[in-house]
């Protein structure tokens, strides 16, 4: 298994781990109260902090992965993305964005159907999470099966 394949797997599992741990930490703090300013503030901070936490955690996990990769294989990780990497990245991102747009439209649909605001935010956040995971899965698929 090559560096890129291993990196896709690590990225997938780290996304799941970060999201699950973050949700377990944040969800009990939900203040309750539909349409209250406190609830809106909660969902806003939920998304913003999740974004920052995800970026930082991914950087840390990536550094740890690179160190372990060098130690176990004796190889240096590639420092650039070549034409195959860019092609796979584009194809995976296309599917990832498509998944997020479906989630976004579903979230908007809940507003049209007079569902709770909480439902809209939950669908939006889960769509972001699923699109991230799907992106990693598709990268792994394209690296293994070819493009």
């Amino acid at each position, binding site marked *: 298994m090559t560096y890129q*394949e291993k990196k896709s797997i690590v990225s997938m599992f780290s996304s799941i781990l970060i999201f699950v741990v973050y949700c377990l930490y944040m969800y009990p703090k939900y203040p309750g109260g539909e349409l209250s300013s406190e609830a809106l503030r909660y969902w806003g901070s939920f998304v913003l902090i999740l974004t920052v936490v995800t970026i930082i955690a991914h950087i840390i996990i990536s550094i740890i992965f690179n160190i372990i990769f060098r130690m176990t294989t004796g*190889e240096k990780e*590639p420092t650039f993305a070549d034409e195959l990497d860019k092609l796979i990245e584009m194809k995976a991102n296309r599917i990832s964005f498509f998944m997020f747009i479906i989630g976004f439209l579903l979230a908007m649909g809940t507003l049209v159907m007079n569902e709770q605001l909480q439902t809209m935010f939950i669908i939006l956040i889960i769509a972001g999470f699923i699109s991230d995971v799907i992106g990693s899965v598709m990268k792994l698929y394209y690296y293994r099966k070819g*493009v």
Partner: protein
Amino acid sequence: MGKHLVGNHIRRLRFNQDEMTQQQLADLVGVTRQTIVALEKGNYSPSLELAFRIARVFNLPLEEVFFYEDSAKE
């Protein structure tokens, strides 16, 4: 039109070139080892530029490194 119609003899040519490793070839043509792996497995058809760079490493014309598989499937 099917996928991966462009085949190649890279594995055999590497072997004939003092058993050049995939990493050595990757470094010479400016790609990652993953791309050489994908090419040898027939999972990826390279850009024209990369195909020429690979052919140049082996000092061979393009058609002696890469071939079009359409005729074999007819």
